[in-house]
């Protein structure tokens, strides 16, 4: 396995009396794609929120690039190089494509010392990014509310590909995509990983996990029920891990 990018050690999260996460430990290497699987309510989304700064863990430790790391806000995680694509889309539908692409990172130029949005520069960047990903949107200046679900998800995916960072978390990124767009999305993930960026992808679709992931981590009832290299397991074995019928193939990877 390549050098560890993010190491999770015994992450726990309680919501009142409910233990959502009961000691999660695993690691993600640079340039590695990890598929995070698990039944509804297993704690996948909670885990993603903890890594991306949306939630604070009750206890446990995270090491990011070898240093202890805890993001209190998404802004901190972003500054450290962690990008997240959420299940429910994180777009502001009341503004245009360009504004969404640059949300929180607008290009500005100073006019009399005041930062002013540089719309033209931003539009050029978005045009290039979308074109290279093969996404077609009629007008970058139309508000996102007028776009289809697939186009919206394409914007989000292109956004993370463009900003890159060091680690990308994808929570059900293909839920609204068609067959062709999903294929392109999976290709995008491989491309991103080949640049040395770590990728965690949550998905329900076994086929997608096996198509794209180097390693498969299964979470069940808030603990890691399996952590295996893709080549050493099969969809059936993974389903058994998810439902808890057997622990076949469980144990650390490699």
């Amino acid at each position: 396995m390549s050098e560890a990018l993010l190491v999770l050690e015994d992450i726990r999260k309680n919501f009142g009396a409910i233990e959502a996460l009961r000691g999660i430990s695993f690691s993600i290497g640079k340039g590695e794609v990890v598929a995070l699987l698990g039944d509804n309510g297993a704690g996948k989304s909670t885990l993603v929120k903890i890594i991306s700064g949306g939630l604070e863990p009750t206890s446990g430790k995270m090491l990011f690039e070898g240093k202890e790391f805890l993001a209190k806000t998404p802004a901190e995680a972003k500054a450290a190089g962690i990008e997240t694509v959420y299940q429910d889309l994180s777009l502001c539908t009341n503004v245009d494509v360009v504004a969404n692409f640059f949300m929180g990172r607008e290009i500005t130029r100073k006019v009399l010392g005041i930062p002013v949005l540089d719309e033209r520069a931003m539009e050029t960047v978005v045009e290039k990014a979308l074109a290279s990903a093969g996404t077609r949107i009629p007008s970058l200046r139309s508000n996102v509310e007028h776009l289809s679900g697939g186009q919206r998800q394409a914007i989000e995916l292109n956004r993370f590909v463009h900003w890159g960072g060091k680690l990308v978390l994808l929570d059900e990124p293909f839920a609204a995509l068609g067959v062709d767009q999903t294929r392109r999305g999976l290709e995008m993930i491989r491309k991103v990983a080949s640049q040395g960026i770590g990728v965690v992808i949550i998905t329900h679709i076994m086929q997608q996990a096996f198509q794209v992931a180097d390693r498969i981590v299964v979470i069940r009832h808030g603990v890691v029920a399996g952590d295996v290299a893709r080549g050493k397991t099969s969809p059936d074995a993974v389903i058994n891990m998810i439902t808890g019928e057997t622990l076949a193939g469980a144990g650390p990877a490699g």
Partner: protein
Amino acid sequence: MNPRTRRALEFVLDNLVWFMLIFVLAIFSLFIPNYFQLGIFANIIEASSVLGVMSIGLALVIIAGHMDLSVESVAALGAMAVGILFCSAGIGMGVQLHPQWLMVPVSLLVALSVGALVGSLNGYLIVQARMNAFIITLAAYIWVRGLVLAVSGGRSAQDLAPAIRWFGIQRLLGLPLTAWIAILCFVVFSLIMAKTPFGRHLVMIGGNETATFRAGIRVKRNLIIAFVLAGAIAGLAGWLLAIRTSGATANLGVGLLFNAFAAVVIGGVSLKGGVGSLPGVYAGVLLLSSINTAINLMGLPANFTQVIHGLLVLAAVMLDTFKQGIRQRLA
């Protein structure tokens, strides 16, 4: 549809309230004798300066997805603070500063800080303590007005210092300086909303607060600034109000809040947040003011004004729904 007609149609939709204003002014000019005069138009702009300034602050907060009912009372408190300090009759203390012009920045600062103070309290309670904006600012609407009554004892201050009054008397191109201040405010804040990251962030927060938080925008900070700005702008409206009436009474500006809401809604700002622009709001303010003027000129009883304003708000909301429908078909 070819791109050019599409763009033209979008332009009309974006600026619909301006077209309405021009239409209404044209109709009035044609059918009401004596309406078509420069003096009348100047009067329309002049009469809308206080309401206009107040509407800016209200619009900022509503675009960011919140609500500020306190702007009217805050303006009254700002006016009363200026009145008590710089009026020489009634309850005015008649504070004199030398040189005279020094009273202008000092009184302005007093009004702005009174407003900003109430605004920051509102902002803190709503954003940090996560209380409901409607209730918090309703409470402020009541207690700030109460404070105005309490400090004035129900009496009024008259005879504002001439140095400050000067802004209401001195004219530039036929308009008093107070009106120019309102116009300047609209220009400045329109630019802030359209061209700066801060304005862009406010619009996006109003659209989808979770998304902006996840994108790393400092949502709380931006929202608190919006509330402080709304308060300070209301304070400025109070300052203009004090100049206009050359003093302050305990019930100064009562009812302005509803006109401000009407102007904001007519101007195309959605109460759901995230939608609207300040030039539209200014057109809304001017539209209300031109209708008032028409009612005056026709000699209708002023009691009808409210009925017409109410119907206008209804029409604005219906028009907005209609606009949404067209846009959907455009996309």
